[in-house]
């Protein structure tokens, strides 16, 4: 089993390749790492020179295939989730205090959060000319879906060398053989086994901070423009891809426990409520 760990996309990344050491295996690991780092340069909102930051600044831009594809995935997800998943929450995140990398966000500050920002902003994508046009004032945050997309891409690269698992800070993509993956529950860890697709967890238990005594977190409810107030602590979803798992996890988190239990379709879903219950839904129910 070959492992490679490195820091990218604002988190710890681990590549696991279940094969014997060989030139092919090491080349695949290097290619997967290079691809993740390349995507980070395009898709992060924390680097003012990234392609995403330039798009946010200019409003209209001819973009490369990676940014175009992730924005199209995000728009498709917004349509399918009827706006619960929304890539235009950038201004709301910044208003809540998440205006720099999470490591640099002050955990406690007396400054109050800004007024809620409007979400559901207009985005027009012209695939023929590879142009993205944002409604004036609208900015994109592709954080979660970009990480899932990058993990899926890395898995596709590594899979050519053998069964593989990519752990991108909790967003997991896997291929080739059954992989046991842990899911944090309210009182321990539940282990799920799957051989294709991805898992992602959305929750308010890790990226959270306080502004003027009020707890803030990074899961913005597009309906209010504020960090979501629900009865869930975190949601884990196993789906056909890590990007799709990320979309579903965020969508179910915003839905709340009772709606999530109903809406969880064929995907395996683990819900952990704020009052300490663990609920299995979808394919696990």
């Amino acid at each position, binding site marked *: 089993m070959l492992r490679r760990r490195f820091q990218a996309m604002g988190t710890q990344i681990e590549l696991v390749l279940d094969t014997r050491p060989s030139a092919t295996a090491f080349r695949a690991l290097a290619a997967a790492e290079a691809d993740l780092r390349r995507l980070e340069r395009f898709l992060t909102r924390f680097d003012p020179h990234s392609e995403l930051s330039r798009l946010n600044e200019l409003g209209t831009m001819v973009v490369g295939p990676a940014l175009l594809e992730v924005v199209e995935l995000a728009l498709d997800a917004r349509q399918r989730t009827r706006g619960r998943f929304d890539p235009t929450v950038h201004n709301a995140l910044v208003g809540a205090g998440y205006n720099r990398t999470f490591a640099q966000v002050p955990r406690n500050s007396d400054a109050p959060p800004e007024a809620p920002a409007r979400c559901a902003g207009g985005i027009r994508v012209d695939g023929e000319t590879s142009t993205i046009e944002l409604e004036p004032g609208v900015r994109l945050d592709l954080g*979660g879906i970009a990480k899932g997309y990058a993990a899926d891409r890395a898995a596709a690269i590594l899979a050519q060398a053998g069964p593989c698992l990519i752990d*991108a800070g*909790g967003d997991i993509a896997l291929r080739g053989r059954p*992989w046991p993956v*842990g899911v944090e529950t309210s009182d321990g860890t539940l*282990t799920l*086994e799957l051989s294709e697709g991805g898992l*992602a967890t*959305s929750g308010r238990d890790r990226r959270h901070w306080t502004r003027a005594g009020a707890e803030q977190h990074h899961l913005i409810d597009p309906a209010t423009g504020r960090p979501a107030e629900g009865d869930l602590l975190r949601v884990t979803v196993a789906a056909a891809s890590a990007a799709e798992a990320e979309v579903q996890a965020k969508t179910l988190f915003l839905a709340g426990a009772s709606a999530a239990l109903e809406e969880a379709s064929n995907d395996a879903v683990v819900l952990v409520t704020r009052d300490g219950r663990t609920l299995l839904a979808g*394919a696990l129910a």
Partner: protein
Amino acid sequence: MTSHVVRLYAAAGTLAAFFLAWAGIAARPWVEPPRDPRLVAMEQREQRLQRDATLVQQVVDRRWAAYRAALAQRQAAATAAPAPPVRVVTLPPVATTRSS
């Protein structure tokens, strides 16, 4: 008298025709004038760039078509792919998913 004037005009006309012909032949209209080598180089460069641009456009078109096809395939897979079979096991996990 009349024939003298006629001869004079004829001689003058012949002389004029001779000089006109001489000037015409000396101008060598069948030979292309020498061209400015800078213009020639520029035209050659333009043709080369046009050829290169056509080739680049063909490569871009080919890659773009491949990208659109792959994107459509990935989007279809993301939305229509069945959820992967998942089961609860008691094995030690290789990795743990957590809030990202």
